[in-house]
């Protein structure tokens, strides 16, 4: 491992590439990554393989690439950077605006602290792209955004905004009611709806109706209604936070009534509605993969009953899904342990989430024209014993501060 690291640095010195005292390397010229195994994320693995990077883009991928001018970086296992489709990174001071139920114009971007350590931690676990959603305390929770977790700034490890105002996030779960039903009655200072699931659905339906008919909604700005309208016309994706079986099914009602095509976030009990999910060609962002030994780890948010092989079952039914949340790589490893196909697991943390976020033209694979977001591992990335050796985001290499 040390030899590799030395080789890496010598390589950079020869290529007259500047690097600062922390060891973060800023590359201006072409970099050739040569891996014993290169997992492309499209179902193929090149053994060996090579990836040529110029600037921030991948310009060539192949078994052998002749690029004498490029500085060479060797690695054992190479794969695309991970895409976390439901992250909560760097959100400072709460992720929900609890004073309003219909807040589609609230932008999570305003709450993100780019200097937060959470970005560094995520990058250290191989997450290079993160979709950050507002919290689930309001029914119309706000708009999400997508960030690269690192690669910017003089230190080379500052995150950058990648896609702003990406999608509209709805909380089709009981979270928005929790604050309003203390001691069994609505007694908060806001005295507001919803206090139960009926209330959640009522707010969703009535607001969608008003947006459809272009009528004003009391207390909701025209701008906010405009965002809802855009989302209903599918000009902006809708992400609904739904975990229990009944919440997942409610999405189908909205789908029928308003023609919306929500991407389901959570999906803890998706295994209970496999047939409908398949029939409706639903897309699911699984945000909890139960991986602990303790029985308490089988109880998810909203007391959902977690099961171990949800990903495997979704895959079996050919339902489009991806994995998301903390410890993303470990989730993929455990998903394989529990029955998910290896290649599916790789794609469910790279190419598929990129596709669900509609950024497949930029990230999610090692392919020509895509951003050079690449990870190098000391061994098979799906093994627990393999460690991340370095990561590259937008063509900038970081040795993770080691």
């Amino acid at each position, binding site marked *: 491992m040390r030899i590799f690291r030395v080789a890496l640095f010598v390589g950079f010195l020869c290529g007259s590439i500047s690097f600062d005292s922390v060891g973060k390397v800023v590359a201006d010229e072409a970099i050739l990554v040569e891996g014993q195994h290169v997992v492309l994320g499209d179902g193929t693995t090149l053994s060996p393989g090579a990836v040529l990077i110029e600037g921030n883009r991948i310009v060539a991928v192949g078994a052998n690439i002749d690029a004498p001018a490029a500085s060479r970086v060797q690695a054992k296992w190479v794969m695309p950077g991970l895409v976390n489709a439901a992250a909560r990174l760097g959100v400072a001071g709460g992720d929900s605006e609890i004073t309003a139920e219909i807040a589609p114009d609230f932008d999570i971007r305003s709450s993100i602290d780019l200097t937060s350590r959470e970005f560094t931690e995520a990058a250290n676990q191989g997450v290079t792209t993160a979709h950050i959603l507002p919290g689930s305390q309001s029914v119309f929770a706000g708009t999400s955004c997508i960030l690269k977790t690192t690669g910017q700034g003089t230190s080379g490890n500052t995150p950058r905004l990648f896609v702003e105002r990406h999608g509209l996030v709805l909380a089709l779960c009981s979270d928005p009611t929790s604050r309003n039903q203390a001691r069994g009655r609505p007694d908060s200072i806001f005295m507001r709806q919803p206090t139960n699931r009926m209330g959640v659905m009522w707010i969703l339906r009535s607001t969608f109706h008003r947006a459809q008919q272009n009528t004003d909604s009391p207390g909701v700005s025209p701008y906010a209604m405009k965002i809802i309208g855009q989302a209903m016309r599918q000009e902006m994706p809708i992400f609904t936070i739904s975990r229990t079986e009944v919440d997942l099914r409610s999405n189908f009602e909205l789908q029928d009534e308003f023609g919306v095509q929500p991407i389901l976030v959570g999906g803890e009990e998706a295994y209970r509605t*496999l047939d409908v999910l398949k029939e409706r060609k639903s897309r699911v962002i699984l945000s909890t993969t139960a991986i602990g030994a*303790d029985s308490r780890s089988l109880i998810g948010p909203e007391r959902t009953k977690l099961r171990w*092989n949800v990903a495997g079952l979704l895959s079996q039914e050919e339902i489009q899904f991806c994995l998301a949340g903390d410890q993303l790589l470990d989730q993929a490893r455990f998903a394989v342990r529990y029955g998910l196909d290896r290649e599916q697991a790789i794609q469910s943390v790279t190419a598929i989430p990129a596709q669900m976020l509609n950024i497949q033209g930029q990230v999610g694979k090692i392919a020509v024209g895509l951003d050079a977001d690449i990870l190098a591992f000391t061994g098979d990335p799906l093994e627990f014993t393999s460690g991340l050796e370095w990561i590259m985001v937008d063509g900038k290499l970081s040795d993770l501060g080691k």
Partner: protein
Amino acid sequence: MMQLTKLTFLILLIACVFVPLLHGADTIAIRAGKVITLGGAPIDNGIIIIRDGKIEAVGTDLAIPVEAHVIDAQKQVVMPGYVDAHSSDGMGQANERNENVPFLSVVDGIDPSLDYFEESLRNGVTTVAIVPGNNTLIGGKAAIVKTAGQYVNDMLVQRDAGMKISLRPTSGSRMGHMAKLRRELDKAKAALEKRNAGEKPKSEPEKQDPPASEGEKKEDEKEDAPQTEGPPQGNAVDAAKMAQGLESMMAVVEGKMPVYLYCDTAMDVAAALKLEKDYGLNAIYVLGGDTYKAASLLAGKSRPVVLDRNLIFWETDPRTREDRKIILPEVFRKAGVPFVFQTGDGSQRTNDASSYLWYQAAIAIRHGVAEEEAMRLLSLVPAKLLKIDDVVGSIEPGKDADLVILTGEPFRMSTWVDKTLIKGKVVYDRSKDTKLERLLSPAAELKQ
């Protein structure tokens, strides 16, 4: 009458069928694709002969006794059962509210029906030291148990296996916490000196005993203990408890009873080292994450420390805001401090994999520990730490037949425990694990 004959017949039938089976089951032979003995080099295509719960022989050219029940593991890997050197799981509650309770024993709190034990077997853990939690001063006595059994007494390897002492203040300051602890230790030391000087109360039958009484005497002493403490006319129950606590603490300062010494922060390590020296403690260091800063203080210790469950965590420098990733196995390895892992400190778990002992070892491998060493860290090293390596920890003749049969090489993502044996009995069999089946294919449970 008819019923009775039927019943008799049934009993006879059961007796005819099962008695010979049970008898035969006393001898077991395992044909293994690979045996990781830890006593020597791994043996390919090995045979393990087990008789009456003990390993009789392990090797390649062994004749399988005719009466032996044969377990076919020719495509599998057999390892010694894993040993967890410190866990506060397996009890309903890890700590008594009172912080000074040396008279307590986890044996009274261990609940064999908790899924902790089931999950232990499912993951190859066969022996565990159950120790009171860290939220205490003197938390009570630990016990070493096997993970299979209906009744705690059947599971016991060693009762009173150590005393839990935590240096993390339960309330108030560290100064107060340490002062209270020293007071208790001094009290025990004084009582011990008094006894050694022969100043025992007249009612004490073992008055003539030499001071260096052996461990076996402890039980007798305990029974007599109420008479040694205070007026016999007082509250008999309380006096008994107090006395038992004092007896245990005397064993602690005598160095006979090991101390699971929990250090929460780096400063606790220095304090613990001083306590160990001042009172002649037989200390097993149980370390919180922050203690990595004091790793160098522990360098040169031959006895492994127990690392925190969270092997990797982050810190931010309060002045420079610089982020640092702390990898405990790496820090301690570089400092030359031997270590073992733990999976349960009794606190609420989040959804992470640190509750698997094999996962902890896999992380250590990721950060520089050799694979062979990691295997030893799962069983032999903790067994030696607990001084039970004469019965468990490796696959060698004479030891308990506590074995894990793995579907493949250890630490691999796709490797599962196929069977777990304790004292030669199959206590976990993956093919019969309906719970696992339901977790992996919940569709089956929905159709029911």
